[in-house]
């Protein structure tokens, strides 16, 4: 009996190896593959669901993996569309064509019990660079400030650095580094969870995902809301990109058109994003 089991196992493994090698290169079924940023993924899933409901015979598959994985997959032809939550780098911009599908505001969030309600970008910059370390210096209670930031390379962080940390000190442009003492979290949900329970914390996150449990600071006198972002008054925002290489195929173009159409944009708006300009 022992031997039969072993031989069976062996055969299974061999067969699998052969199958995988023979069929490995087989062309995949014609669906539109969309791969990339995990920040855009949930929204893209909503869009693909609605798309599939409107045209049941057309299929779009949404995958996460990160902006870079998305671009790489797009370059290799594994995906027709990449999702990117940061601006394309110069080298990437030569290779790909980016389509802004929506704008997303960045909300600076604190614990609901925090007395501070508004700050200027300069104040926020001093807090995140580690110069201001106590809430009483910005008009709050006597508590240490606990910084929460996002990981290096995340679209949210890059937008934050570009819009807040880039200072015009003495007329010269320079980017102030975020303090190395800042806690780093890898998702909007994680930032939210931390800020929700810690009265000392300050963080920044996607406006669409804040919900009602956190307090959002007004920045430079403007309270964050999709309306203010759309009007261009709220200073912190970033684009969500769909990225294609060369001319998109008919099917991908069709999906992109749907996303940019009134009904596609309405879905995104309902989720707290802002229409693409």
């Amino acid at each position, binding site marked *: *009996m*022992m*031997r039969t*089991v*072993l031989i069976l*196992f*062996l055969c*299974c*493994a061999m067969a*699998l*190896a052969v199958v*995988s090698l023979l*069929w*490995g*290169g*087989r062309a*995949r*079924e014609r669906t539109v*593959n969309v*791969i990339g940023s*995990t920040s855009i*993924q*949930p929204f893209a*899933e*909503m869009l693909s*669901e609605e798309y599939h409901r409107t045209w049941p015979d057309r*299929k779009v*598959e*949404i*995958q*996460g*993996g990160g902006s870079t*994985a998305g671009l*790489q*997959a797009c370059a*290799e032809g*594994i995906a027709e569309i990449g999702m990117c939550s940061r601006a394309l780098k110069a080298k990437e911009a030569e290779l790909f064509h980016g389509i802004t599908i929506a704008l997303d505001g960045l909300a600076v969030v604190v614990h609901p019990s925090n007395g501070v309600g508004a700050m200027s970008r300069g104040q926020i910059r001093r807090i995140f660079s580690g110069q201001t370390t106590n809430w009483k210096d910005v008009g709050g209670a006597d508590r240490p400030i606990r910084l929460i930031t996002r990981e290096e390379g995340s679209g949210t962080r890059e937008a934050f650095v570009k819009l807040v940390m880039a200072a015009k000190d003495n007329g010269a442009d320079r980017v102030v580094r975020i303090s190395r003492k800042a806690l780093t979290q*890898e*998702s*909007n*949900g*994680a930032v*939210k*969870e931390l800020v929700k329970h810690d009265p000392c914390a300050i963080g920044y996150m996607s406006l669409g*995902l804040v*919900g009602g449990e956190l307090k959002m600071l007004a920045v430079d006198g403007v309270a964050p809301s999709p309306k203010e972002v759309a009007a261009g008054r709220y200073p912190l925002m970033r684009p969500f990109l769909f990225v294609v290489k060369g001319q998109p195929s008919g099917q991908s173009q069709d999906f992109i058109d749907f996303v940019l159409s009134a009904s596609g944009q309405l879905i995104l708006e309902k989720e707290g994003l802002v229409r693409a300009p």
Partner: protein
Amino acid sequence: MRIVSPAVSQRIAVSLLWSMAALTMGILVFIVAYVLWHGLPHVTWGFLSQSPRSMGREGGVFPIIIGTLWVTGLAIMIAAPVGLITAMYLTEYARQSRLTNVIRFGADCLAGIPSIIFGLFGFVFFVITLGMGLSVLSGALTLSLMVLPTIIRTSEEAIRAVPRAYRDASYGLGATRWQMVTKVVLRSAMPGICTGIVLSIGRSIGETAAIMLTAGSALGFPKTVFDSCRTLSLHFYILSREGISMANAYATASVLIVVIFGINLLAYWAMKRFVAGKR
């Protein structure tokens, strides 16, 4: 150094050990109970049989359960035989040399490499170079590489623990090496080998980072091994970390625990039958 009498130290040691065991059990039971307590009330038939809707905020996890079984099952079907045979070869066949030691050492080191590195390797090699795309197959192959070191090392340990006398006796009875290995050594080593396999099943079910890069995270239903799918752990991770739905996250974790429970029971049943076939 003998300050306390053996009888006293025996009593101290035993009570200390028992309290350690109790603490261990307590923690582990607490974790399972906590998840089930928060999750089970949300596990309904609808949750088990429907597809997720609006990013998993509504609907169920049916395609995800299937995806989990696909990926894990396939990964173990590849890794278990290859790992076992490699261990067998290294201990019973290969001349014990520097090379076998290097292989052993390399396997130990790879066991500690973070899964995301395996994920990236899988992404570059299986997904892009071999053109398998984000699919159940790429995911399973990546996972099987990931658990291979664990299976090799645990099986090897189990095989090496079989007393030498058993081998000598079976040679003495005129058995060939193959007969000795399969009929004597492997059977006595079976419980240890199974531990390794069960641990590996656990590790592959629990994987998230590598899965996202190789099997993808599509919410569709995987019909063939070339389709992309999402596994329960990844679904739990996305739901809880992106703050999409806590209730569904706990419910997903509960389903996951039940699935793991089922798979382990099955593995034990298979092992029992295997060992029973001994005489």
